[in-house]
């Protein structure tokens, strides 16, 4: 077993893991935050997306030990029921999810996009969600939601 340190959503945590333990399982089971979903375990679906040192990764494709010392941001940190993140609000208003299984990954991916570039072009938007598979909603509403989040961010930035 390896003892690793993670800063999860601003809180320091120490957990013990087998070196083969996937980051997604460590987050859900050792850390106890189950908002990060497990879909394919092959790197295809994006349901397990978290931010590691501000960069989105598919946490089923990262060993927990590799993240020792890293700063993690998971869906639990993205806003509260009374104070939604603009990305969450946009997905809600545009009806951009149904069952919601893909949603945590989708939201974090879009959060990373906007953190990196508050005014992304259409191609960047399509590219940003291309690693997140949604089996229910269809990408029409999802892309509308991302564009709406972009507009909201732009307006909020306006002096």
């Amino acid at each position, binding site marked *: 077993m390896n003892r690793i340190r993670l800063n999860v959503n601003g809180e320091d945590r120490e957990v013990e893991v087998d070196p083969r333990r996937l980051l997604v399982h460590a987050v859900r089971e050792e850390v106890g935050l189950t908002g990060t979903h497990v879909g394919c375990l092959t*790197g295809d679906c994006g349901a397990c997306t978290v931010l590691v040192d501000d960069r989105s990764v598919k946490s089923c494709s990262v060993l927990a030990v590799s993240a020792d010392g890293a700063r993690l941001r998971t869906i639990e940190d993205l806003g509260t029921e009374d104070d939604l993140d603009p990305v969450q609000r946009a997905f809600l208003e545009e009806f951009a999810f149904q069952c919601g299984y893909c949603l945590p990954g989708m939201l974090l*991916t879009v959060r990373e996009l906007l953190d990196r570039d508050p005014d992304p072009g259409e191609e960047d938007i399509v590219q940003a969600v291309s690693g997140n598979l949604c089996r229910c909603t269809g990408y029409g509403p999802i892309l509308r939601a991302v564009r709406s989040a972009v507009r909201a961010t732009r307006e909020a930035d306006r002096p």
Partner: protein
Amino acid sequence: MTGEDTPRYTAPADLDGVVAALEGADEGTVLVGGGTMVVPAMTHGHVVPSALVDLGRAGLTGIREEDGATVVGAMTDYASLLAADTDRGPGHPLRLLARAAAGITGGPQIRNRGTLGGSASYANPASDVPGCLVALGARLRLASARGVREVPAQEFFLGAFRTARRPDEVLAELVLPHGDALAWGYVKFKLAESSWPVVTSAAAVLAGGGLRVALGAAADRPVALDVPAPHRGTADPAWRALVADGAARALADRGAAFVDDVLADAHYRAAVTPVIVARAVEGALRGADRQERGRA
């Protein structure tokens, strides 16, 4: 996951540490680059490591210039490569790699994590990087306790998922010589957005007027060939026949052949190859043209 077969895990802090960790290693010692291929392979039991050597802390990143070549650290990920691709001429080797990186599927998560060295070492025939390295005449710098050796890309890729890397070697750097390319074109031909490609082609317009072309995904390993310039355009049937012959010969020379798989049969791959090469060449010619006009 039982305690007894838990692999030994190390994450060396530099290349020397990696080399030391690999001393005497056998096939059971598994290197972890970005992990995008090898970690799921462990999850599904396709890879069962006795030891894990994580390259994530060894600092094998970064891009630098070295006597007539650009040297790229094996742990450079696609996103960093794209970020570094600024203000370089259309014939610069990084331009080709950036073109390929821009078409990597799987979303920003894969671009943030997948590395050039991991793609080369994995040697999936359908991957983008191997064909590009062959087109560039790249050399793969392998380090072990026995020293450092350089293997030309064409000799590195031995077959599907097979390379010249020995179990105690780490791919440390990719050496990309500044050759005589004026501009690069790249085409990845696939039948669905997130599917693996049927054929990829990288093409360069060379200073002497000829063309260098590489084919990926067509066979179990990538190959390069020289092709004359299409004086009557890339639609000219005689030129396309030359490309088809050249491709067949280049494959045969390396003991390879067009492959059959779920995406396409060998006959289809052979038929589509001259078309895809033509598109890559058109891209390269446009790039060379733009540069010419920019200079005038």
